[in-house]
């Protein structure tokens, strides 16, 4: 009993240590209460929660769209192009898939800060800055995954397309269209990464209530404040979104099997 109590106590964040109670029952009660409050926040469509969810979706979807416009054609070009140093480019691109979000946030912060090269636009601590940061984070992911997906397709198509007189550059739109089902799962992977990261949006957005607060930054803040119900409610919504995204990916894979064979 004492042991569980200590573990739970350690898990309770710094801000909540003042209200730390030495009884396991009450700690579990806290958790239970937090869950029920979270459920009611969702059920009642609490305006603060809804605003946070809406901004999260807006920022991450915008970032995914922008990244797709850059990353998909770039990945397709890398799949068909053969040039000296291609191997090094691919290694660099794959390495950038693992770019830590906080580092990405820091780089975008430096670019957008008042004294930075793009400071004149005054984007720092706005949703736009968060879109930029997430787009920078996931563009390499989309490009690298697109390259992997389309390279196999290109190996299959290359000879026939050359026979038709199509140049590798002309093959890019063909590959993007014929790889459309696989590429949708690539997009979902990018969106999942964008909506789940906290470091980048925290740094460039600043987690300003009602303006730049998104699900992940709100969860981080509310947990450290000890407001578990709100954090849990947002966590649950985030999980539902992630589940929905993965269910969509699964459905797409099955659809693609019907067409791609």
């Amino acid at each position, binding site marked *: 009993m004492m042991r569980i109590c200590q573990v739970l106590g350690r898990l309770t964040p710094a801000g909540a240590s003042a209200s730390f109670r030495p009884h396991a029952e009450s700690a579990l009660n806290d958790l239970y209460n937090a869950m029920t409050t979270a459920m009611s926040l969702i059920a009642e469509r609490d305006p603060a929660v809804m605003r946070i969810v809406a901004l999260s979706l807006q920022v991450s979807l915008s970032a995914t769209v922008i990244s797709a416009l850059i990353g998909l054609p770039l990945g397709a070009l890398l799949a068909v192009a053969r040039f000296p140093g291609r191997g090094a480019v691919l290694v660099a691109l794959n390495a950038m898939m693992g770019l830590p979000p906080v580092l990405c946030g820091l780089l975008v912060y430096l670019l957008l800060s008042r004294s930075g090269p793009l400071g004149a636009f005054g984007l720092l601590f706005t949703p736009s800055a968060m879109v930029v940061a997430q787009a920078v984070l996931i563009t390499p992911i989309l490009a690298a995954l697109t390259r992997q997906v389309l390279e196999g397709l290109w190996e299959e*198509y290359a000879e*026939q397309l050359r026979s038709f007189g199509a140049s590798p550059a*002309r093959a890019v739109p063909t590959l993007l269209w014929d790889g459309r089902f696989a590429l949708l799962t690539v997009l979902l992977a990018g969106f999942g990464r964008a909506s789940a990261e906290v470091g980048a949006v925290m740094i460039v957005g600043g987690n300003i209530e009602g303006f730049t607060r998104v699900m992940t930054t709100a969860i981080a803040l509310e947990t450290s404040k000890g407001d578990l119900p709100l954090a849990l409610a947002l966590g649950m919504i985030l999980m539902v979104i992630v589940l929905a995204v993965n269910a969509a990916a699964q459905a797409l894979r099955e659809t693609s099997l019907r*067409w791609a064979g």
Partner: protein
Amino acid sequence: MRAPDTILPLTTEGLGFSARHVDILRGVDLRIEDGAPTLIIGPNGAGKSVLLRLLHGLLAPSAGRVAWSGTGDPRARQAMVFQRPVLLRRSVTANAEYPLSLARMPRAERAARVRAALDLVGLSALADRAARRLSGGEQQRLALARAAAMRPCVLFLDEPCASLDPGATRAVEDIVARLAAAGTKIIMTTHDLGQARRMAGDVVFLHRSRVLEHTPAADFFAGPRTAEASAFLRGELVW
């Protein structure tokens, strides 16, 4: 089926191809005239597919050259069907239309050509189906329709029946015969002697990277000039 001007005859001079210092084809001097199908035969590994790809321009020769006749761009007047059909992940119609869109053909003419080509190969009823869900024989017929819709002067076929059953093989041979009768020059590889006998106007016999014979089919099957070709016809593998 095709425009009156021709890109034939096709000639090669000292054509050779090597990969990693191994000769795959050496000293090929050919003159291929318009007319009945030219069949390239020979045992596996003789270089049949490489010769076809050199003629079509998919491979760059290591030695010698390939020369077409006539004016204009000879590449635009050729099509090729591969042993395993490469079909796009689209509908049957979209597949047949694809090379025509690449050539920027007007929509109405594209549609008309595609309809005629699908009709020729008997796939009109499957026009809206996903191409890659067709059977192997249907896929190869679609590849033929796609090539036919381009109305090429020369159609290359690389072992088009190698992975098909006898029924599908006969269907492909019928389609190719109709294309040939309509004036398309067929240049085709096969390892199936029966097929060569049924289809060939003239025969190019390849053996160990070299062209040993290029004669009218009747002469070739009646009495080949070389011992290797005789052995090959008797079914004794000569590799």
